[in-house]
Every structure is written in C-alpha cells, then in structure tokens.
C-alpha cells in the first residue's frame, strides 16, 4: 500500500491543511461556545453537537479509506494532462480560483440532484448553525463519486498534490463561516468572499433562501451564475432541512436519504420514475407535486400554500 508520505500534499512537501487546522477547529469552537453563552444565545446543544462531531470524526476515517482511490484517479487523469503547469505560486493562485469553481458546481449539483443530495444532506441536517455544524461532514460522498468532479483539474495540468492541498484549504476556509456570532464583515469582503452571512442563507430553509449561495471561498460564482441571495435581517434564517429528521443518531443522519431513495425506487412504476427519484431534485414526485426547492420558492413568491409535501 502507498504510504501517506508518497501521496497527497506530503508528496510535494506541503502539509495537510485539515489535519493542521484541527487544533484551531477545537479552539474556535470552544471560543464560540463561551461567546454564545456570554451573549445568552442558545447556539449549542449537547446531542446536536455530539452528532456533528461524530460525523466529522467518521468523515476523517472515510477520507483515509478513500485517499488511495482518489489519489490514483487524479494521477491517472494527470497522465493525460493538456498543459504542464509548474509548481509555483502562480499555479497555486490559478488553482485557488479553478478549484473553487469546481467546488461551486459540485455543491450546486449536490443540492439539485437527489443522488448527491443523499450524500450531502447530513451537513444540513442540524437545526443549529455553529462551528460544530461545519464538521457535520459527509460519509458517503466519495461513494457517490463526487471526487470525479475534481479530475478535470488534473487533466488541465494542475499537480494532483496541489489539488488535494487546495481542497483542504477550501474546507478549512469554510469552517469559520459556520457561525451566527459574526453578523457582517466589511462590504468589500462580503462582495468577494463567502462569509458567515452568505453561508447562513445557504443553510436556511426559508423558501427565499433555499438552494442559494453554493460558494466555497469566493461568493463571486453565485453572483455570476444567478444563485446569490443576500441575508435579510428582517427574515431570520430557519436552519435545517425542509423535512427535519428529528434525530441525533449519526447513522440516521448519514443514511436517512439513502433509505428514502431505496424506498422510492422500490415503488417506482417505470424507469423514468426511477430516474426521477434518483437524479431529480430532492422532493421530486412523479406527478410534479413534490416540494422541491423550486416549487417551494415559486409558491412563496406567488403567496400560495404548498400543495404537497
């Protein structure tokens, strides 16, 4: 088996940003718990936090298990690269934007198609929004093949080790934006970067906020591709998912949507229905009455009550 030092960022002498950041994750979460308590803001709940941290821990384990496969995939794609990009700071700067662009589309795909939503929904399953929510990471995303979306970066010629490093940087960046303790940052920063305010919108179930702000580091992609929504202080975010699961059991959190997919596939009456249940938007129903985010938003805009769900 290939050792950790011969693959990933370590192969070019770079650290794993996520591993490096774990003490900071803990320190900032501790600080947030204390600040929230001082502000008398009920940000944390024991069972919810335990579930989120367990999800994060198991996510680390699955990352180790999948590392070899993903590394092999990136290396294979790199063999067919279009350009030879040198290992310089300019290449890294280009990758900073290119990887974030890929992340935007991965994230949008994960919200718009149920197969990938099943892997991503766990991250949204908490009705709280705090730094521990950031660690409520997927268990099944790599099984669902999300890593394939990053292969084109290797085909373009970005060194695989740098791609894995940048994925870690992005994950670390996205940690601190999972908080209600920071309201707004300077206007120039809010215009360019993903911020706590933008990401609160992303985690909200209010129809106005549903499926908005998919950004990783730069919010510019949402502004560019029409998925941006600003947080309105007059409409506080309601966190969670449209159909909250009401469970703190990590197994249920990780697998409930997969169970739902299997149940729906078993009752599908045609291949078209099966495809709809698998690749349609979350909430899709064969008769078109399902509470998809588009439908909830349209109902909300028209001032109608949802007709299904």
């Amino acid at each position, binding site marked *: 088996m290939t050792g950790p030092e011969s693959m990933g960022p370590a192969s070019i002498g770079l650290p794993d940003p996520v591993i490096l950041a774990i003490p900071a994750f803990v320190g900032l979460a501790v600080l947030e*718990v204390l600040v929230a308590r001082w502000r008398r803001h009920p940000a944390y709940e024991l069972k919810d936090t335990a579930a989120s941290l367990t999800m994060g821990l198991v996510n680390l384990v699955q990352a180790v298990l999948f590392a070899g496969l993903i590394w092999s995939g990136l290396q294979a794609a790199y063999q067919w690269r279009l350009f030879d990009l040198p290992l310089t700071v300019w290449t890294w700067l280009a990758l900073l934007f290119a990887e974030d662009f890929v992340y935007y589309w991965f994230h949008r795909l994960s919200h718009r198609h149920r197969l990938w939503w099943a892997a991503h929904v766990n991250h949204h399953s908490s009705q709280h929004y705090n730094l521990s929510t950031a660690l409520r990471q997927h268990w099944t995303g790599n099984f669902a093949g999300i890593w394939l979306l990053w292969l084109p970066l290797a085909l373009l010629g970005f060194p695989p080790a740098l791609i894995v490093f940048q994925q870690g940087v992005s994950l670390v960046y996205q940690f601190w934006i999972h908080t209600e303790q920071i309201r707004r940052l300077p206007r120039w920063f809010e215009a360019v970067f993903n911020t706590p305010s933008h990401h609160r919108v992303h985690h909200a179930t209010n129809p106005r906020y549903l499926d908005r702000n998919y950004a990783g580091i730069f919010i510019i992609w949402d502004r560019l591709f029409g998925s941006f929504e600003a947080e309105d202080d007059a409409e506080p975010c309601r966190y969670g998912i449209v159909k909250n699961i009401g469970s703190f059991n990590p197994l249920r959190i990780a697998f409930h949507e997969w169970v739902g997919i299997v149940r729906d596939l078993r009752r599908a009456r045609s291949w078209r229905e099966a495809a709809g249940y698998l690749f349609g938007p979350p909430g899709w129903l064969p008769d078109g009455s399902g509470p998809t985010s588009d439908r909830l938003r349209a109902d909300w805009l028209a001032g109608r009550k*949802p007709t299904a769900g």
Partner: protein
Amino acid sequence: MELPLDPTVPLAGIALILLLVWLTGGRHRAAIAAPAEAAALLALPETGFAAAEIAVSRDGSTALARDAAGHIAVVFGSGARLAARRLPRGEVVQVAVDRDADQADGTTTATATLCIRSTAFTHRDFVLRLDAAAAADWQRHLQAQPA
C-alpha cells in the same frame, strides 16, 4: 496502516467541546407551550399547513394538527428546537392508543398515550399523552385521513 493524525487530538477536542456545551446549558429541551405556537410553526412556508385543530401532548413534547381537509401534521421537539412535518397517511406505519397508561382509577379524567410510528423518519415514534377521549379521536383522525 499509519494514520496521518494522532487520534487523541480530535478525541480530546471533542471531549472538551462537549463538556463545555454541557456546562453551559446545552441540555435544554424544547417544549410546545401552546397550540398557537405549533400552528405558527406549521404555517411557515416550508410546511404550509393550515391547522384547523391541534392537540398538544401534556408534556409539550409533541403536537398533532389537522387541517380542514383532514390531513395530519406533527410538531415535535428535536432537542432544543421544534420541528414540523406533514404526516401523510402512507407514511404512518402504526397508530396505537395505550389505554392502560395512568388509568388505574378508571376515571374519565385519565390520560392515554397515543403512539404513532412513522416510516418517514426511518421509523420514528411519536408519543402524545392526551385525555383518553382526545387520544381516541386522534387515532380515528389518523386512520381516516385522506391519501
């Protein structure tokens, strides 16, 4: 297999965070204070349920609601938060009233426990403690709700 991280670091961090959350009041449980609170939650656009009748469990943990057409929705405590969901007929696996609960004296003021098993939540149970008559009514409502 060599791990890229000493597991004691994240495990100690988890223990520290949980201890602090516990010490700072993180064990609060949400309760439904009044039918109006459940109705307001159900009326939010995500659920869009116009409750015509609501029953709240005596312990405030759960509420059932019925709209004018006979559809049922549930409001339930999920830790420190409340959540609301429709409870379509096809998603309810079992409805049972345990009439023995708190009925030792046999009086009409006794309560009954209405237990609803829902497959929508990967078999979550909802338990409501209601007056015996109310529990029987809601059992009928759940079984008679339109598809």
